[in-house]
């Protein structure tokens, strides 16, 4: 018996740092994808706030006490998603209205640290958090590590939906844990997909 799910990936430039504006963009793009029939919709890693690419591309980003890095960190702290964030109400309304499953990455603030959270919005429930277990290389200058409490799946009526973030796909035991959670659909969130990653991701199907 076939059971078909309409899925969509939003490939768009995020609005870096300014999450207030990024949320408006996400609501628009989600509405567009849903209007075209998608019921499972995926956005990339930290789409809300944008991937902190200055860690890779700006030579001075890791310098001690660098005023630019501190200013950017301060802005991300100010803009980051928090628990029960009222700014995400419109997105939740859209998800409820069309019975969507939306996976979207965001900078999240807990107390005074930032996390890389790939959230799954689903109808009639709070978003499911998945915080990146090990921020990769320079990312550790921005994000704290998530704990094991957010290694999970959303149980939709038709099957389980989960996600891992970027280099978590290079963690064999994280993959094994997701296999054990019996995903029907897996969202693999990256800031950009290079060809070398293709085998890594396609092989997760098994």
């Amino acid at each position, binding site marked *: 018996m*076939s059971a*078909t*799910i*309409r*899925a*969509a*990936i*939003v*490939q*768009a*430039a995020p*609005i*870096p*740092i*300014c999450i*207030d*504006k*990024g949320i408006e963009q996400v609501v628009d*793009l989600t509405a567009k*994808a849903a209007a*075209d*029939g*998608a019921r499972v919709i995926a956005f*990339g890693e930290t789409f809300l706030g*944008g991937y902190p*690419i*200055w860690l890779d*591309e*700006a*030579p001075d*980003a890791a310098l001690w006490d*660098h*005023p*630019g*890095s*501190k*200013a*950017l960190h301060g*802005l991300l702290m100010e*803009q980051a998603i928090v628990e029960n964030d009222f700014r995400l109400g419109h997105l939740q309304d859209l998800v409820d209205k069309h019975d969507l499953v939306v996976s979207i990455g965001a900078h999240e603030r807990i107390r005074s640290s930032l996390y890389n959270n790939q959230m799954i919005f689903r109808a009639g429930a709070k978003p499911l958090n998945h915080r990146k277990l090990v921020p990769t290389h320079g990312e550790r200058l921005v994000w704290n590590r998530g*704990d*094991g*409490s957010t290694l999970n799946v959303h149980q939709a009526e*038709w*099957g389980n939906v989960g996600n891992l973030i970027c280099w978590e796909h290079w963690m064999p*035991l994280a993959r*094994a844990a997701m*296999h*054990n959670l*019996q995903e029907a*659909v897996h969202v693999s969130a*990256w*800031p950009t*997909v*290079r060809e070398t990653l*293709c085998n890594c*991701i*396609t092989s997760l*199907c*098994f």
Partner: protein
Amino acid sequence: MHRDDLLNGLDSAGGNDAAFELIKQIPDQKLQFGGSMIISPDGEIAVEAGRAETILHSEIDISLNDEAKTALDTDGHYSRADVFGLKVNTEPKPGVIWGKRSED
């Protein structure tokens, strides 16, 4: 995503001169390129986005998940639970727990 997107986002969020100077160390070019794909349960790429901004749609027949497990189920018939084990600690780690000694 182009460096200009970063500068515009920073402007919207009210970044200061120091933040702008750091971002301007980044080459003035496109920095992220997309490459999204939707992959079928059999591991084949159903659709690819390439580099352009787009919303990539596909139907996924999730009933194929079962057929795909014919030869390989790494969590079941192609595993050896008596040889290998995985323990996942799902306990939240708040770091500091407040309470009276009697509640230990």
